[in-house]
């Protein structure tokens, strides 16, 4: 930008209390895992942040045994009102250490500090507060009197919202009386291990929460372990299918939160300026690393040109750069591997004849960055309209009538979320009924609340997280 240059306002990385070495957390202690240590990288600079000890398959067994013991001897026997106290304590500790967690998350993940600080960490705390409230009220959750926990929950989470996905998984599991073995993503293990410190600070009984950094094989070992009662997974559809095959035929309960290719539908009577904001927020929030990202814009033909003009202007004002700078709107892509995937899909868009437009924003020389990109002239038959890109890339399609909008929006193997932009209330209700998506936002996008269940249709998975419905995944009902 030109004459009005904003001052850099970076958070100090010292706030993250970054250590050289991190270790797995089993039975209430940090222990040396017997897996190969991995190095976690700052995606904005490509510097190594820390060495992280990982678990091996035998450590998985130790952790599951610790979780089982904690479940049998303490956690499942404890009155709900007592469990609630621990959850409240954890929630407050997340708040107390929120700056540390936010900076650490931005360092490890590459997301802008304004998102980790204003969205990820507060929402994570909110999930613990919310579920703390349920812990002693499960009788009134609608699953009959005195519903029982399942036992040991094995949980595998992705790298896009490391701390928040952990909260989504651990809070309901603990509130309902289950114990947990959780594997954070290979590229973003750090906040989960600081969360383990928080469990210690909260004096959570040993073994109730176990955290095992590692790669996919450790996730697989958690899923395959014979003494795990429930699997919860958030991640790619590909891995989700693999897990479903593994779990099939066992007694394990399973919930999957997988990929998405959400339609964001803009009608000609929409509040266009705010629709543009919603489109931007829908796809460029967290660099598009959001399973419910509004990655397919369906805009009514009569306003398509106007929306595209407004959109290009708005996107060109997005500021990309240092994730720790509070002026940054778009941070770094989480890994070199993910950047390569995005590039590959974008090239397929070029090859298949879509029109690519890229924001003229300056791109940092170092680190994994991808400038916000908008494809127009996209058709349903193109890969960029069908496959999840998981990056800051928007595909724009058009429609003529509400029925066509519904048909195109639903024409996807996924079904996690959708957006509707119109000033006509009756059309919102009509569309929301027709759309096959777990969440339908009207005149907004990417809004989350612990009380609102989240989950998908079709290849976006099954089961719900959050709200009263989310409790079912961790209860024997």
């Amino acid at each position, binding site marked *: 930008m030109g*004459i*009005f240059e*904003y*001052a850099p*306002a970076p958070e100090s990385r010292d706030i993250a209390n970054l250590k050289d070495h991190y270790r797995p957390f089993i039975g209430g202690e940090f222990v040396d895992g017997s897996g190969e240590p991995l190095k976690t990288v700052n995606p904005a600079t490509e510097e190594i942040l820390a060495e992280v000890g990982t678990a091996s398959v035998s450590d998985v067994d130790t952790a599951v045994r610790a979780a089982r013991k904690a479940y049998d001897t303490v956690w499942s026997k404890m009155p709900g009102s007592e469990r609630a106290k621990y959850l409240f304590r954890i929630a407050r500790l997340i708040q107390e250490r929120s700056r540390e967690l936010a900076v650490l998350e931005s360092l490890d993940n590459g997301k802008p500090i304004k998102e980790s600080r204003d969205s990820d960490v507060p929402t994570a705390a909110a999930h613990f507060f919310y579920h703390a409230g349920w812990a002693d009220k499960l009788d009134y959750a609608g699953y009959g009197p005195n519903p029982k926990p399942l036992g040991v929950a094995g949980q595998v989470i992705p790298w896009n919202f490391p701390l928040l996905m952990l909260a989504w998984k651990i809070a309901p599991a603990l509130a309902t009386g289950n114990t947990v073995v959780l594997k954070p993503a290979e590229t973003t293990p750090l906040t989960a291990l600081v969360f383990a410190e928080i469990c210690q600070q909260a004096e959570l009984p040993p073994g109730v929460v176990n955290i095992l950094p590692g790669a996919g094989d450790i996730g697989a070992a958690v899923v395959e372990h014979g003494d795990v009662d429930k699997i919860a997974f958030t991640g790619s559809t590909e891995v989700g299918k693999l897990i479903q095959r593994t779990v099939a035929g066992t007694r394990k309960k399973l919930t999957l939160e997988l990929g998405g290719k959400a339609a964001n539908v803009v009608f000609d009577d929409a*509040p266009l300026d705010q629709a543009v904001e919603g489109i931007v927020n829908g796809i460029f929030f967290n660099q598009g690393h959001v399973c419910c990202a509004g990655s397919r814009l369906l805009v009514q033909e009569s306003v398509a040109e106007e929306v595209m003009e407004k959109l290009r202007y708005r996107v060109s004002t997005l500021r990309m750069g240092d994730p720790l700078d*509070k002026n940054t709107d778009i941070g770094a892509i989480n890994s070199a591997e993910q950047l390569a995937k995005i590039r590959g899909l974008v090239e397929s868009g070029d090859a298949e004849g879509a029109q690519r437009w890229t924001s003229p924003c300056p791109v940092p020389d170092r680190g994994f960055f991808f400038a916000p990109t908008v494809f127009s002239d996209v058709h349903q038959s193109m890969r960029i309209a069908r496959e999840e890109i998981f990056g800051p890339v928007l595909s724009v399609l058009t429609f003529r009538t509400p029925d066509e909008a519904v048909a195109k929006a639903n024409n996807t193997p996924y079904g996690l979320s959708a957006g509707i932009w119109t000033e006509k209330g009756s059309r919102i209700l009509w569309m929301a009924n027709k759309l096959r998506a777990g969440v339908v936002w009207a*005149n*907004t996008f990417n809004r989350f609340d612990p009380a609102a269940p989240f989950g998908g249709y079709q290849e976006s998975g099954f089961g719900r997280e959050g709200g009263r419905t989310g409790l079912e995944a961790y209860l024997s009902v």
Partner: protein
Amino acid sequence: MTTTTSPNAAPDTPAPLADVTRDEASLRRFLHGLPGVDQVGVEQRAAALGTRSIKKDAKRWAIDTAISMVDLTTLEGADTRGKVRGLAAKALRPDPERQDCPRVAAVCVYPDMVEAAVDALKGSAVHVASVATGFPSGRTSREVKLADTRLAVEYGADEVDMVIDRGAFLEGRYMDVFDEIRAIKAACGEAHLKVILETGELATYDNVRRASWLALLAGGDFIKTSTGKVSPAATLPVTHVMLQAVHDWHEQTGELRGVKPAGGIRTAKDAIKYLVAVHEVAGEQWLTPNLFRFGASSLLNDLLLQRRTQVDGHYSGPDYVTVD
């Protein structure tokens, strides 16, 4: 800015939109066909932009730019020539001890005080603005409003701030409002016309957008939020809607029109939030006193205090700036 074709004739509506103002029905269709404004969305965006970090060089630049955009205003029943001369002196030397401090854009007074202001500002580049048209309620006949405007211009005002007839607007008599703005614009001659929408009385963002377009269609050089006599006066979200309107107007017609939030902006911190909105919503080229103004009386002193804090490295306190 637009040029008047000849004195006493408002410029025609630009070609792409000429049909819009053909008759009452087409004007209504056009205004009601504008995209709505979602309240939650615009307020969220305004709040988010308010968190941009402006420090050091950026802050110094922003403070000086804001000072140069101030319409230093006194609009009291008790205004006297002495008060106006004091204000004019302050407009010329906002910070007497610092010659590098920019001057404000204009001094804004009631029509009967224009002569005093013009006299005191003679030979300087500081403009004289006058609120005319039965300010602030506008509840008088068109003849009186036109006479009020002519008086201000005859006395030497080169900027006129008019109020729209909110009653007519809320009744849906858009053509009456349009005609009146055009008539006043014609009466302004060479003077620039700022059209006050009194957004606090329009109540909804949809109305703010419609009124903005109505004023632009009728030839207003600036759209202005408020008289300062009604609460709420200027707010960030309302200003966002108006900045979006001038941005869209420019996209459609190629013309540049200005925005002036007025009333309730008291601190440098607030003013800087408005500048960020100007930068990111309308666009960089609006960051000039020709296209953006602050209607304010107490804002200037806070800007001066903050300016000194930036230059001297410490805060000096309210006794170190002048009170007029």
